[in-house]
């Protein structure tokens, strides 16, 4: 073991905040995972295990969960009490706070009354406060936190793992500059030592943490927004890990010194292109055959091998490997002959006789990767279907707005996990009202509700599988791949436990990492 137990990491972006209720960017979440701790955490295989809750019971119809808190303290030495969860959860659904992730509380009793308030015309404060009182959270005593759900939601334990559900001391968060290092109150394995805005952020071992003390004394994040610059810093031993830009993967794989430091990672999320189904008169809304034709005409494996340099896995559906409900062989295969047949049936559906009459535009947010992907897709459709598809790239934010308000015929999109549960990849993405495609299938929605009401995790799986098969056959989107990547890790970093929820590999368990002699 090295004398100095410090892990040095690049930070791709300045966190937008360190207020657990407000943050949503991947970078900020990575830091929240170190500074805070939820009721329920994960083991290395992402199974739910006790976090700040020592145990929990669910009533018979699955609408009430009682969490029994363990004895644990904040970094300021004060005890973490059930009332802090009550405050934190109410704050999350308070429309005056306007939290990005308020939606995860949809199933909480009384929350929808708040989430559905007209944002432009909020009722007076007193009325909101009354509604907050009615939210289904209570603290009968300091170590018991009771949650009432509006309807059964078997995945709700996964929601209780999120960074937005951690305990918050009201007296702390309401003070001026609460999220600055000198005031920060942490409930996780690390505490905030310093935060030089726009430069760096240092975490230090939290001695009050209830679990085994972190082996690392410190984690230093340095803001590095340029991936080439981060790679240079790694090469000069200024940081211990760095994500490899896709342009450098081939070069580093053939570098004798560096190739052994490459760690292949997988992230629970997928890249997809969604069809516009909002306008009933649109080609794709009219014909599932046409959608399947466009999907089956794409050789995804070649796309992954070339454009992504192998740093991804071909996806057939939404639930990624490692999440219960993942299906090995689901998905529309690459089959040009079959695609041609589907195309002919699709043309009949939309009342056309020749593929050249299809007037289709694919839209994407501009980046080298997306440009290359779209070029690949349009070439596949030209060769395998004989269809010329126009493409239009927009600047990222302008594209997000366009996709929301007036989508292209085919739209680039991605989904990354909020919580490791099939519902987050199915219901939250393909459920009616939850997607920009305008996809809606009552049978699919019914299966989602049925699975949510099913308390036994084993019994949920066939329901999620069935829903996936249904949705894949409907083909509202073209699934391309599940995300993967490569990270360079210095040989002196020991005990890294990568999971599919990581931003930096091993971030869920940085407290078990140690630094060897170097």
């Amino acid at each position, binding site marked *: 073991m090295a004398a100095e137990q410090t892990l040095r990491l690049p930070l791709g972006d300045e966190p937008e905040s360190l207020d657990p209720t407000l943050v949503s960017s991947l970078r900020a979440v990575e830091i929240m995972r170190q500074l805070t701790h939820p009721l329920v955490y994960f083991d290395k295989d992402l199974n739910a295990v006790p976090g700040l809750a020592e145990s929990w019971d669910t009533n018979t119809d699955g609408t009430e969960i009682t969490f029994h808190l363990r004895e644990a303290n904040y970094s300021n030495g004060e005890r973490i009490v059930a009332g802090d969860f009550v405050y934190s959860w109410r704050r999350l659904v308070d429309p005056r706070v306007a939290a990005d992730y308020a939606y995860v509380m949809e199933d909480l009793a009384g929350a929808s009354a708040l989430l559905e308030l007209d944002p432009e015309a909020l009722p007076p404060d007193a009325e909101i406060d009354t509604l907050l009182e009615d939210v289904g959270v209570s603290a009968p005593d300091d170590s018991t936190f009771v949650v009432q759900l509006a309807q059964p939601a078997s995945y709700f334990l996964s929601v209780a793992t999120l960074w937005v559900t951690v305990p918050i001391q009201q007296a702390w968060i309401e003070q001026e500059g609460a999220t600055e290092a000198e005031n920060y109150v942490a409930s996780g394995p690390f505490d905030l030592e310093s935060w030089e805005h726009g430069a760096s952020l240092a975490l230090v071992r939290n001695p009050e943490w209830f679990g085994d003390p972190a082996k690392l004394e410190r984690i230093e994040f340095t803001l590095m927004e340029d991936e080439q*610059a981060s790679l*240079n810093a790694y090469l000069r031993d*200024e940081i211990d890990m760095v994500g490899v830009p896709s342009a450098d993967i081939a070069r580093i794989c053939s570098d004798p010194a560096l190739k052994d430091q490459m760690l292949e990672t997988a992230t629970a999320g997928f890249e997809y292109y969604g069809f516009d189904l909002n306008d009933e008169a649109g080609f794709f809304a009219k014909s599932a055959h046409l959608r399947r034709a466009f999907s089956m005409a794409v050789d995804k494996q070649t796309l992954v091998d070339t454009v992504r340099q192998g740093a991804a896995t071909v996806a057939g559906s939404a639930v990624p490997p490692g999440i219960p409900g993942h299906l090995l062989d689901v998905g529309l295969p690459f089959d040009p002959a079959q695609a041609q047949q589907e195309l002919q049936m699709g043309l009949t559906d939309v009342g056309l006789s020749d593929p050249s009459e299809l007037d289709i535009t694919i839209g994407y947010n501009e980046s080298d990767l997306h440009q290359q992907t779209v070029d690949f897709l349009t070439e596949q459709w030209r060769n395998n279907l004989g269809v010329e598809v126009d493409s239009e790239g927009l600047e990222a934010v302008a594209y997000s707005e366009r996709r929301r308000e007036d989508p292209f015929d085919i739209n680039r999109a*991605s989904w990354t996990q909020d919580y490791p549960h099939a519902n987050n990849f199915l219901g939250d993405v393909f459920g009616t009202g939850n997607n920009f495609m305008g996809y809606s299938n009552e049978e699919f929605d019914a299966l989602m509700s049925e699975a949510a009401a099913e308390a036994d995790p084993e019994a949920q799986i066939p329901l999620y599988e069935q829903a996936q098969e249904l949705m894949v056959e409907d083909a509202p989107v073209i699934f391309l791949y599940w995300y993967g990547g490569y990270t360079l890790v210095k040989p002196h970093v020991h005990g890294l436990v990568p999971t599919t929820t990581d931003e930096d590999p091993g971030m869920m368990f940085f407290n078990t990492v140690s630094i060897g002699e170097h």
Partner: protein
Amino acid sequence: MTGYVIRRLLWIIPVLFAISLITFVLMHAVPGGPWDREKPLPRSVVERLNAEYGLSDPLPVQYLRWAGSLLTGDLGPSYRYRDRTVNDIVGDGLATTVQLGVMAFALAVIIGIPLGMIAALRHNGLPDYAATLISIAGIGTPSFVLAMLLVVVFSVTLRWLPTHGWEGPSSYILPTVALAGYPIAQIARYTRASMLEVTRKDYIRTAHSKGLRERTVVAVHMTRNALIPVLTILGPILAYLVTGSFIVELIFSIPGIGRYYVSGIGERDYGLIMAMTMLYAVAIAVINLVVDILYAYVDPRIRYS
């Protein structure tokens, strides 16, 4: 002179007003808003945030609110960094950016002017070709290429200097050089052209025919006159440098404000965009005024009344 300065200072006010209005209108005309992300937020959250930040009000109302708070020195909220104000963000990074800018400016002047003079004095000689080569390379090399080259050579390969950061003199060197590259070339070219023009003037011939030594002619008669046009471009160069460089700050992870120019626009952080634009406008206006005043001292033909 005092009257002139006051008049010029008063003129800055309508100029700033016009710039702020144009920026405000253009910024809101660009599609997308601060809540449009890769992973879409639920529509209700977007609307709630718009209401919270007053983005659903009519644009004139929003503009007046912004202008009103500006008068009290309040640059408003940041839409991305939700628990910080634009004042916090600019306040934290401005000193670093100005320090980097001033160092790069000094380097550019110290190298650029002599380089241009040598080129002019050895017109069509080897030094001229060498200096011209350097300045063409400087003009043609974007700062990110220069920055990356410097890092690969001096940090990664030779390991002399850190690749990033802003902690002490050793970390100042590469960013300063990277930032100064283009202005060095610009100043050298202006100085050379201006010197060449001066060498053909009658008064230089007179000075030579009086039998003055070459050194005196260059130092007293040529330099002072040749530098007047150079002074004109030094103003905008200084204004550009002290308000920060997106690329150089990004590559070297420098905690300045330069990066907010581009990231503010990319993230539609309206408060930051306005603040950065106004800052740049004020810097240009004030530095140009200073340059104009300096003319009066450098060039005897110019007097303000």
